[in-house]
């Protein structure tokens, strides 16, 4: 059997794939956090809960209405994003003139409520969500066995991340967003509806979390607790990457996912803490984060 660093290559590649999958979700979630933070100057603690909401929305659409995976892939981001727009209009828009910490505390409360509701009705045990027939099964690549759905998640998340990045960098809407991030009052003076931009940004950010949630549903089990534990790791990713750059958030997400996978191969006991250790090291060497501009 082929060995890499004294580990069978199958096990090595398998853990790397798990790392890449986790990294895909870190990247998608830190991307959403960075977009929301860039415009609203608010750290969306509810991002994890919205990810959980996405997974549950997919699960419930199937259980109640018989809506399958593919339509859910479109519907779920719209539902979660729409809910985000509602919350932004009703509550978060009142917090813009305050210290950003209040936004963090409000969305923390929101996360507790969302998590509490689903825990109350569905308990803490995970619910299985089968991948669609087209993506079930696996492929033998000769050197390893690849479950097709996992390959799909990696590709889909790359497409989502690159698409979002291109939309922000290359489209007219994206240029409005970037301009409003730099100088909201000037952009408003040019006749752009900045409050509407803020609302849409929060909607898009929440929608991205929902999309990540439905993508995650067949990989992890659908459970009320799946979001908040993940969001704390994503916060560490965001501290490492710095929120100044969208691309930085994406790249850091994948790298740290892979780092976690590596650790699982060589020193499994540390795999749950390695991202936090990396965060501490980055804080020592480069406190502003790898891609950060603000100190």
């Amino acid at each position, binding site marked *: 059997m082929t060995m890499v660093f004294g580990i069978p290559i199958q096990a090595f590649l398998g853990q790397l794939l798990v790392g890449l999958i986790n990294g895909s979700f870190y990247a998608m979630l830190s991307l959403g956090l960075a977009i929301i933070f860039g415009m609203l100057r608010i750290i969306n603690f509810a991002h994890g809960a919205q990810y959980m909401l996405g997974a549950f929305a997919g699960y419930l659409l199937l259980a109640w209405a018989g809506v399958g995976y593919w339509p859910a892939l479109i519907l779920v981001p719209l539902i979660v994003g729409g809910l985000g727009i509602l919350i932004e209009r009703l509550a978060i828009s009142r917090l813009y003139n305050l210290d950003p910490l209040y936004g963090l*505390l409000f969305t923390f409360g929101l996360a507790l409520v969302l998590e509490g509701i689903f825990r109350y009705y569905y308990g803490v045990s995970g619910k299985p969500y089968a991948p669609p027939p087209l993506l079930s099964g696996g492929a033998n690549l000769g050197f390893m066995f690849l479950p097709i759905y996992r390959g799909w998640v990696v590709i889909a998340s790359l497409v989502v991340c690159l698409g979002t990045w291109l939309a922000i960098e290359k489209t007219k809407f994206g240029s409005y967003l970037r301009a409003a991030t730099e100088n909201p009052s000037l952009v408003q003076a040019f006749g752009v509806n900045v409050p509407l931009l803020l609302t849409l940004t929060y909607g898009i950010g929440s929608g991205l979390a929902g999309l990540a949630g439905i993508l995650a549903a067949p990989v992890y089990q659908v459970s009320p607790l799946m979001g908040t534990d993940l969001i704390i790791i994503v916060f560490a990713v965001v501290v490492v990457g710095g929120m100044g750059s969208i691309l930085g958030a994406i790249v850091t997400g994948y790298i740290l996912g892979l780092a976690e996978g590596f650790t699982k191969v060589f020193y499994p006991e540390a795999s749950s803490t390695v991202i936090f250790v990396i965060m501490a090291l980055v804080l020592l060497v480069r406190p502003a984060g790898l891609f950060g501009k603000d100190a």
Partner: protein
Amino acid sequence: MAVAGLSRASTESTSTLQWALLAVAIAGLLVAPFFVYPVFLMKILCFALFACAFNLLLGYTGLLSFGHATFFGGAAYFTAHAVKVWDWAPEAGILVGVAGAAVLGLVMGFFAIRRQGIYFAMITLALAQMFYFFCVQAPFTGGEDGIQGVPRGELLGFISLNQPLNIYYFVLAVFLAGVFAIWRIVHSPFGMILRSIRENEGRAISLGYSVANYKLAAFVMSATLAGLAGATKAIVFQFATLTDVTWQMSGEVILMTLLGGIGTMIGPIVGATLVVTLQNTLATSGFPVTIATGLIFMACVLVFRRGIVGEILARLPDRNSK
């Protein structure tokens, strides 16, 4: 954290009326165990001290830590281990817990003060989660079971803490000493510098203060006092479990402080009393505590950011403007 209306509460002069109120409050606490279940009172006292220690950092230095469960729950583990496994006296065990919390505070503070604002909050949250995973895996914490059956022992070798009244007055003494320490820190020249950092960090730097050192000192003091609360709780309830090191616990202490009034002396005590009472009530009603907690959080942020005590103080006639 620039919170409007705080300066009034923190610059209040200690008038005769306030001394009288304080005397009444202490007298009330002295007779309380004859009317209310002492374990319930001790739980409130432990959490109130925890919230006051947290408020030293948020209210008077302007730093929002999302990782204070580390010091509260960590100290509980250290104390429980010292008393149960090493067979130490309760006062020595509490000292071990407090010292451990101080060391943890020094480490976490060292990393966290490198960033400001929301980054500070996220770093403390991440490091606290790391400590949580450490507690899940480390052999001495007993994993999911925690450390159970911690003996209360005899204070100073002759006061049996198994007597409900003895342990109540011991916890009350710890609580009063802790709150007095916080009051002294806040009303010292050191406390004034902390407040200047909260109001305008840039100006404090330009005045020549090494802001990083002051922040770290405040962080360690807050962690130490939070540790005192956690260590005492371990003796009272005779166990230390993972619950006390979770992020939910860090969130709970923020809620107590926010609800009572950030940057007020008695706000966190009021907040802790309300939250603990609410949790006890909900525990029997079947309504999920997390939903209630989250709703109060959202309501506080949207409607009364000064908290209950802060709102009352803001409505009182200004005594300083004569």
